[in-house]
Structure formats: C-alpha cells, structure tokens
C-alpha cells in the first residue's frame, strides 16, 4: 500500500518544530509500524537526508521505550498495543497518518519523536520500592498471599512506564502510572510498612515534575497498552487520603 505520513520534526529541545510530509510506498501489511519507519529512514539516509529519530528497543511491547502519538492516539489505533506491536494491516492504501511525539511539559522533546521521560524515574525514586536490602528476605512461601490480591498486584505491575497515559491525558496527568506502582505495593503485605509515605511522596514528586491533575476522564486507561485499570487511580486516591489523615504532623 501507499501512505502519506505527516511526521513531527524537531531538531532539539530548543527548536520550534514542524510537520513534514513523506510518501511511502510498498508498505506490506506484515510490517510493524516501526519497520515502516525503518524503511523510510533507510530511504532518507540514501537520499542524504536526516532520518527521523524515535525511541524503540525491545520491539516486543514490553520495554516501554517506543512512544508515538499516531493520528491523535497514543500508540495508534489498536487496543492494548504498543507502537512497536502495531502492524500495518491496521491501515488502508492511500491513508494519511499523522505522527507526533508524546506532548507534555514534563516530557520535553529531545529530537523529533524522542522525548525525555526521566520524570518517571524520579517518581519511582520517591517511593516506588520496598526497602529491603539484599539478603534480608524470609522464605518466599513464609507469607501466603491471597491469589486474588496477587493477581491484582500483578495486573498493576504490568505497567511498562511508556508514558502513553500522560500523552493521552488532556491534563498531562501521570496518575495512572503513579497509581499502578502504589497499587501494586499496597495490595501486597510486603508493601505495608511504607504504604503511607509511599503514597504521599510519590504524589508530591508527580506534582513537582509538572504533571497535571487527574479529572477522571479515563483517557489514560483507554490508551494504556497494558490495560492498566482506572481502579488503580481510585485506590491511589484512597491511599493518599488515608495516609494524609493517618500521619501525626
């Protein structure tokens, strides 16, 4: 098939940026979306032009590195699918596809479609862990965990930290990302001791990074490639409020 791409090009964080149009032909429906970009980049290099910079690594939908905003949707049209797993059979001959980077103040553009998501690391540093040094653990079966809770914790832990939730949100809120980690650890007995501080500190860091507030529109859940549930945000709100009431100062 033949397609027209409108791709965001931006030399660096200072550059203003603009869309550029590219015609691509001989696109096979078995190609992944990123393979279509590989083919285009190969052509641009051969024509002496600069290829389009985009983040990608595992191409199996799990590392969370790929991050394209396609025709107004984070990771494109398929449900629960990262950009790297989106395949060209999703499109028809003659389609025009608009590709942009994640757009959020907390995710500055590095180049073209590549953004800086280090804010997510800093939210994790604020409390997204259980303080257990290597060697301190008890036997793994010493604490039985209700399968239902364990499964819910796993569902929350499936977050790949790609930032689609932020990109999809009109407020650029990072609530789904933050709530997924808070939920995972709140659902497990191991996470108990640091539960309150974790909720308070991670939310504080999220605000400090410049992410917006949550207004419960649910766009994040709709676009999340791992199907992280909005229920996690409700849980984060409960955790946050309970922690606020429960602290002495």
């Amino acid at each position: 098939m033949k397609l027209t791409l409108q791709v965001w090009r931006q030399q660096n964080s200072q550059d203003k940026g603009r869309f550029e149009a590219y015609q691509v032909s001989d696109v096979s429906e078995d190609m992944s979306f990123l393979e279509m970009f590989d083919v285009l980049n190969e052509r641009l290099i051969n024509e002496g032009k600069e290829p389009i910079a985009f983040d990608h690594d595992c191409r199996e939908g799990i590392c969370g590195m790929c991050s394209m905003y396609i025709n107004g949707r984070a990771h494109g049209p398929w449900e629960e699918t990262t950009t790297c797993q989106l395949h060209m059979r999703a499109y028809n001959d003659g389609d025009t596809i608009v590709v942009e980077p994640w757009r959020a103040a907390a995710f500055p553009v590095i180049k073209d479609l590549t953004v800086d998501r280090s804010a997510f690391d800093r939210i994790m540093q604020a409390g997204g862990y259980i303080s257990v040094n290597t060697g301190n653990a008890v036997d793994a079966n010493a604490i039985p965990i209700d399968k239902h809770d364990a499964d819910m914790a796993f569902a929350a832990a499936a977050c790949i930290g790609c930032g689609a939730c932020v990109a999809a949100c009109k407020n650029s809120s990072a609530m789904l990302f933050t709530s997924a980690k808070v939920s995972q650890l709140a659902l497990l007995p191991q996470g108990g001791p640091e539960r309150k501080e974790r909720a308070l500190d991670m939310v504080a860091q999220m605000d400090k990074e410049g992410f917006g507030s949550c207004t419960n529109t649910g766009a994040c859940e709709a676009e999340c490639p791992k199907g992280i549930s909005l229920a996690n945000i409700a849980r984060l709100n409960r955790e946050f409020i309970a922690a606020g009431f429960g602290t002495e100062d």
Partner: protein
Amino acid sequence: MLNAKIPAGPLETKWSNYKSTVKLVNPANKRKLEVIVVGTGLAGASAAASLAELGYKVKAFCFQDSARRAHSIAAQGGINAAKNYQNDGDSVFRLFYDTVKGGDYRAREGNVYRLAEVSAAIIDQCVAQGVPFAREYGGLLSNRSFGGTQVQRTFYAAGQTGQQLLLGAYSALQRQVALGNVKMYSRHEMLDIVKVDGKARGIIARDLVSGKLERHFGHAVLLCSGGYGNVFFLSTNAMGSNVTAAWKAHKRGAFFGNPCFTQIHPTCIPVSGDHQSKLTLMSESLRNDGRIWVPKKKDDNRKATDIPEEERDYYLERRYPAFGNLVPRDVASRAAKERCDEGYGVGASKMAVYLDFADAIVRYGKIEASKKGDDHAVQEEVIKLGKGVVAEKYGNLFDMYAKITGENPYETPMRIYPAVHYTMGGLWVDYELMTTVPGLYALGEANFSDHGANRLGASALMQGLADGYFVIPYTVGNYLADEIHTKPIPLDHPAFVETEKGVQEQLDKLMGIQGKHSVDHFHKALGKIMWDKCGMARNEKGLQEAIKEIQVLRAEFWRDVRIPGKQHEFNPELEKAGRVADFLELGELMCMDALQRRESCGGHFREESQTEDGEAKRDDQQFSFVGAWEYKGPSSYELHKEALNFEVVHPSSRSYK
C-alpha cells in the same frame, strides 16, 4: 594455562568456605570506594543496588532512556530455583546436574554448583521486593516446568517474568539513587575502558543526547552489558543490544570465552519479509502445553486444521519419547531445521513448524468441566473452558502472536521457527567473576558464564540475579579490600586523556567516511553471513569462507558507511555505527572459535561431528576446555585453554530419548 581460582574442597562447601574466608572491607572504607556498573539489566541493576546497599559509591550507566528498559525486561517464561516447593524431588544438586548436563558438559562445576546454591535466595529476595509471582489458590507460589528438566522448579509471572524481576531490581536501584548511593547515567554508552597500571580504573562514556564524551573513574568496573546475539542482525534481542562494552574490554586485554556458543531458540515467530527488523520469541513455557508437528507429506499446502491426526508428524515426541516437546532448546531447534530443510516446513516461506494447542485446550476444558461437576459437557463447552485456561496461562503471548501474524492461535496452530536468542559465550571470568583485566568484572549474559554450550530455559534470569545479588557483593570486596589506599585517579590522568582521544578518533573517522550505504545495510549483510555459516549448523568450509567474507565486509564498512547528522547531538545512526563496527570484528572471532572447535556440543553443531541419526557428537578427549581468546591486533587472536575438570558429574552422551 588460565586459572579460574575455583576454591579447593568438596563442591558443596566451596562457596560457603569462600564466603567465610574472603577479605572484607569495613563500612568506613566502602564509602571511599567507587564502583562503575555498565548496564542495568538483571545483573547490572541487582549488582548496583546491592553494592550501594553495602555502602560503596556506585555509578550506573545504561544506553536506554531509563534503567527499567534493559532487555532483561523481555524475558517471558520464568526463573529456576531449587526450592523443591512441589515435593517432586528437586534439590540444589539436581539443578546443578541439569545445568551441567543441559550445557553439554562445557561449564565449570564449581560455578554451576554455586548458581544452584544461591537460586533459592533469589526467589526470597524478589518476593520481599514485591515481585508478583504467580500463586496458587492457597496463596503459595506456583511453579511450572521448562525444557531439559523433569521437575517443576520454574517460578513465573504470567509471560512477563523478566519484566517483573527487572522492575524489582530497578526499584531497589531507584531507592539507592534516591538515597544518593548510586548516580545514574541513562542515555549514556560506554565506549572504552580506562586502564591504569594494568588495572581497570574507569570508562569513557558518550552522553547520547549531547554527544559529548565523559571520563568516569572507578576503583572497579563491572560490565553487565548483556549478550551479542545482534551480531546476526535478526535475533530476539532488543534493537539496541550490543557487544560494544564487552568488545572494548576485550581489546583492552579481557579474554573472550567460547564466542561461538550461541543459543538458537526453537519457538520464535518466523520471518515475514525483507523489512523484518527483529524476531519475537514465543516463550519456551508454551512447550509445556503445545505440541510441535509438521505434515507427514512434503509440501503439504492444506490448512493445519484440515490435516488429519494420522497425517501429522509430532517429530519431537517421535524422536525423543522421554522428554518429548520439552527437549532442550538446541535439540528442538535443530530438529525443526532438519524437518524444514527436508521439505516438510509449513507457511508461505516453508521455514516454519506448527506449535499446536488444540489437545491442551481439550484437556484443560475437561478438567474445568469436571470441576463444575459436568462430566458430560458438550465439545463446544469443553473447548470454551479450555481456551479460558490457556488464556490465563499464556494470554499475553497469544495476543502478541495474533498482533504480529494476524492469525488467531486459539483456532489455528502457531507457526514457529528457531531464532538467535542468547549467547553463552562472553568475557572470560574466573570464579570471582573477574576478567583477565584486574578490577574488571563481567556479570550476567556478558560473561561466558555457567551455561556451557547450551543454556536451559529460565536459567538466564537466575544467573543474572545470582551474579548481581549474591556473588559480586562478596567477590568484589576481595579485590577492593586491597584498594582502600587508592585515591580517586584525577580525570586528567594521561590514561584518561589517551583513551578518550582514541574514542574521539574513532567517532571522527566514522563521521568522516560519508559513504554510500547505511549502517543497517552492513549489519544485514553481516547477519546473513553469520546465520548461513555460523548459525544452527557449521562446517569447516563455510566458516573459512565466512571469515574472508567478514573481512571484506568490514573493509567496505570503513570505506563506505554513511552516517547522517552530527557528532555532538542525539544521533542514533552514529550509535548504531559504533556497535556494528564492533560486531564486524566479533563475527570473525566467533567463526574462528567455531572453526577450532571440531566437535558438536550444545548449540554448537559441527556437521562433521554427528552420530548416524544426526545427533550432536561431543569430543571430550580433545575439547573439554573453555576457549578463551586474547586480542592481539586486527584479525589476530590467540587461543588460551581452561581445562574443564569434572569431579562430580561424569560427562556422558546427552540423551533425551
């Protein structure tokens, strides 16, 4: 002769004796010692976090935008541990034995025993961190079995075990970053090792966003930079996975162990066209329930579901009745290649076999129906229930398969074919994980490791975390205890200046070529040579040709590669060029190693060395050694041998029949 420094005494007490007598560093001195960790996968993240917890000052580097993205994240199936939670006869000895046997008797007994010994503590540590492993209704941990074993010792988190383990280690690492014990450098790539008076004392790294070179000092340097499967261009590795850190270390004096030992994983989604950029694994755990077959008739073009049972050849069950579909990876891969080469392959390319879940769906469906007290459920109901069970076990893998191929694996068998997946070879290390350069360590897949000539499924995660959580915290202390008087070396030391100059010259040279072809053009050409002549089957003539072809290709690369953009900016093509330049050297060494090893063992199959029925034939008389190569200059390497002594396990013909 290489000295692996394996502690004396019986196998069972080597590690505990080592730990009890190893030199220690007191907490006040740890604060003054700096350790560089390159790579933040399971080995790197666990090592960086654990060393920081002990009090060392750690600097961690990764080329991705976050430490959480390292390719360990993509491991699907599980992690082995000798917990014997299933009461099915597992033990430290059995895990050790299975690993040595699975590796076709080309690994060190001492190392493998230690690996099995610490395996149980890994699971404890991960659970304590909040890793949500699969559980049974009673709340206890669930297990499944993997290839090459007859017990259930694999712990898992759906098909995302690597992700959950890595996020556990990453969380521990982030905690240490917050505490100020680790300084994290993401989007940084190590481009050389700095040696002072023969010891590793730092690295030169490139900030991939600004393109600037940086000098970093460390009392010790840990390379946890993963494997080199991408030398084949197409592999299950991430696009960025590369050999550069290990290769630069090799050129600075670290020997490279068994470079030809590569693992071709049997169950991957087949190549769909020239645009293919990578291959996707379908977890080995699928072989617990999936049955592998091809039609009995050559060039059978019927749909899989139209081929009746009696016209199907379940060739693994036929050839290996004892292990069936759960034979080790090398055996399963070669068997698939054999069928396809003979003309029994399926799909458009005919380079694929079926992995079929129809039987498992019915079996599980009947169990579910029986649980509901409905022993006479109609077939549709049974299949519906069975699909539900299969979805719970493998749902994410089935979804991934459907997205990539456009086919529904619940209705029609998956098409699979072997693909490059893991490299058992890597930097040679002694028992303490130190390379032949003092102060330079290699952990995880980056070292030549504990897997011999073939790694068993669910053992890579085990080894990466064993090295990082439980081995290096002890062994690095044994070295650093003698470094407490070494002051940080100033970054204007001639060794830093000279090394950085060399890195700068290579970057200038690459940017200056401005030839006609992209980096990928050369990478694909290299991959084709490697796959055709140093892949699943190798022979003398092919390997000799490959060496010549790689030399020619390398010369072309340095004459004709085109790298757009500038050096001092974010430039992914320049990053790729440096990595491919190193692959073009490594590929040649892999072929040389494959050429010298005139035996078949594990993943290394020399066509000249096979039994009458096509099984791999080992030659213990001549090749019971680790081949460790020393870099002597362009295209010049010297082979050193570390003899393998088997005191407990006696190498025998590896039979899964």
